């Protein structure tokens, strides 16, 4: 036995334990942020559930968000006013609220009034945050708050920066919860969502519209409360960064491209909670203010490889086109562009990608796929494909991943370029793929084969599963990692 090594490791664990004791635990450094992240993830799932049930949406936000983890960041609001807590409270405003509907033609101060049990109120100590659809209300005949700056900057790789300013337009000080203020970008704000759904991040939301029906609007209840008094004319300001992957979620169709190309000017809506005079109870009031955002910047031109692609949906088949995926990852999230850690082991990511057709016939055709159970722990999937395009294909033989779709099993196992489990489709037109940090370009001549194999944890359900092999296309501008194009080779072992 290797006692020295065992003793060394045990001693190191004890050193860690002593460190833990010396710090009095790790509540602040570890547990509190973990708890916030868990709440956020659960809120995202709740948003997905809402999307599927209450709003009768297609697809699942939950799975989409779980695969991606943190998607953007929002900076704390900066207030120009001292943190004194006098002003109009929710109690002052609630009594005067009246019903607001999509087409009522009125103007004034818009709001949202949510009702919930105290135990479910995140501002009353409930241990979770939530996104909800609540009745829209008019709070006053004149605006109390106004958006005085709404600016969107689109970076070349598709990262979007939003900056905003909210001013007290009334003649009275207003108590606002600046810590939970959330932003929403809506591409078509004056209609009811018709099933597209929305994508939520950390106090961020992207949707066609916030109207879940003609009387109710989606509101986020997230973040740590921090009340401040906004005196007449004073402002709150903030900014947020939304990464390109956030624009691959539900309800985001065409928004990023539209903003970049100038065809869409989204409406930025700020939702700010108005705290009650006393403790939080069963009702929460949010004021809403919106403005059309000004857009600057645009995404870099795309390679010719991305031109002429046609939209594809799950299950669609065509003999005259090749299944493919466009993954708009941004270089920051592209494993090919992340620092090499030097251990010689490829790392893989599972980005959300848009399903497309490459017109003009099949390019690569699978001729052989099989799964063998190597031992009681391990299975191996092997495949072989032939270049049937009639021309040379530039492919990346180091970035060939495999997705094994087991349906609604409730788990996903990702390892070394294999994804086994939960269906990878987020909706009809987007799905998860696999991208490697490694690259090994190969010019595959017509009629020549390309083959590979992957090892994965044995799962008997895989034996009659279906799935896909992904092969990254090497482009003439391969040094640009903003987007990746993958050929998708579907297979099925059923029957």
């Amino acid at each position, binding site marked *: *036995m290797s006692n020295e090594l065992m003793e060394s490791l045990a001693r190191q664990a004890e050193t*860690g334990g002593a460190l833990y004791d010396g710090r009095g635990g790790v509540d602040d450094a570890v547990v509190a942020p*973990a708890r916030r992240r868990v709440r956020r993830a659960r809120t995202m799932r709740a948003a997905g559930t809402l999307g599927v049930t209450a709003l009768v949406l297609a697809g699942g936000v939950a799975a989409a968000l779980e695969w991606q983890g943190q998607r953007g960041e929002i900076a704390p609001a900066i207030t120009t006013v001292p943190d004194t807590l006098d002003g109009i409270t929710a109690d002052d405003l609630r009594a005067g609220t009246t019903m607001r509907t999509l087409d009522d033609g009125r103007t004034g101060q818009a709001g949202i009034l949510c009702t919930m049990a105290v135990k479910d109120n995140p501002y009353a100590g409930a*241990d979770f945050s939530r996104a909800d659809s609540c009745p829209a209300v008019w709070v006053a005949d004149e605006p109390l708050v106004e958006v005085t700056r709404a600016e969107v900057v689109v970076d070349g790789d598709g990262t979007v920066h939003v900056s905003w300013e909210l001013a007290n337009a009334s003649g009275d000080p207003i108590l606002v919860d600046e810590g939970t203020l959330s932003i929403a970008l809506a591409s078509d704000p004056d209609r009811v969502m018709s099933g597209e759904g929305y994508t939520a991040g950390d106090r961020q939301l992207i949707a066609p519209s916030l109207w879940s029906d003609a009387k109710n609007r989606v509101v986020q209840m997230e973040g740590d409360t921090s009340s401040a008094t906004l005196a007449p004319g004073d402002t709150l300001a903030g900014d947020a960064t939304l990464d390109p992957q956030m624009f691959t979620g539900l309800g985001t169709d065409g928004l990023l491209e539209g903003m970049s190309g100038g065809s869409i000017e989204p409406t930025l809506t700020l939702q700010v909670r108005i705290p009650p005079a006393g403790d939080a109870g069963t009702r929460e009031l949010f004021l809403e203010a919106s403005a059309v955002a000004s857009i600057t910047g645009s995404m870099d031109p795309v390679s010719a490889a991305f031109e002429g692609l046609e939209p594809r949906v799950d299950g669609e088949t065509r003999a005259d086109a090749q299944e493919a995926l466009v993954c708009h990852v941004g270089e920051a999230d592209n494993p090919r562009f992340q620092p090499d850690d030097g251990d*010689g*082991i490829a790392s893989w990511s599972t980005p959300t990608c848009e399903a497309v057709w490459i017109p003009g016939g099949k390019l690569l055709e699978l001729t052989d796929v099989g799964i063998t159970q190597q031992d009681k722990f391990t299975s191996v999937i092997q495949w072989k494909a032939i270049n049937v395009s009639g021309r040379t294909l530039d492919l990346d033989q180091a970035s060939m991943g495999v997705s094994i779709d087991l349906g609604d099993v409730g788990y996903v196992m990702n390892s*070394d370029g294999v994804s086994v489990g939960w269906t990878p489709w987020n909706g009809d037109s987007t799905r998860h793929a696999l991208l490697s940090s490694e690259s090994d370009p190969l010019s595959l001549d017509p009629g020549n084969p390309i083959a590979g194999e992957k090892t994965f944890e044995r799962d008997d359900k895989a034996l009659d599963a279906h799935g896909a092999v992904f092969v990254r296309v090497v482009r003439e501008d391969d040094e640009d990692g903003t987007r990746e194009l993958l050929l998708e080779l579907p297979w099925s072992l059923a029957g």
Partner: protein
Amino acid sequence: MSRWSETLDALMRERGRALYGYAFVLTGDAADADDLLQDALVRAFKRGRGPEDVTAAHAYVKRAIQTAFIDTHRRASVRPRRDGRDADRVLQDPTTASATRDALHEAVLSLPPRERACIVMRYFDGLASPAIAEELGISAGTVRGYLTSAIEKLRRTHGDFGLDPTDALEGGDEHVVITSKGGAR
């Protein structure tokens, strides 16, 4: 308070020290151990009802520490230091047992993440290759490959300190066993 939150509190109250120590063994750095444990807690509690009780949560989180450590090896904070050293330069004073263990752990920390995780699971958790494979979701053959490579590197950098390659590949428990000793597993 929701159930997952109560379980999280109980877990950290009863097993926090052991879990943090485990993260520290893998990372060798307090800040990295913080990040790793945080990631593992999120993985374990973010979906469904979360683990049912402290023992189950301990198992979930410990496995999450292992997989998160490997998955996040791209981060600079847990990037391995490269092993370009010779044995005599690592072990300055072979007569001192504690120095030996310290130098040995330094050598462990120089291993790539997957090899390091396998070494820790083999020699700290006492697991055999198939059990390590099951925990990490990779093949037993792959685990044996990592162990072989790791042992070779440790012997090269640290000299022969009685590490038995056969024992590394063939020894250990076949099954993960949870014990109550300080919350260690």
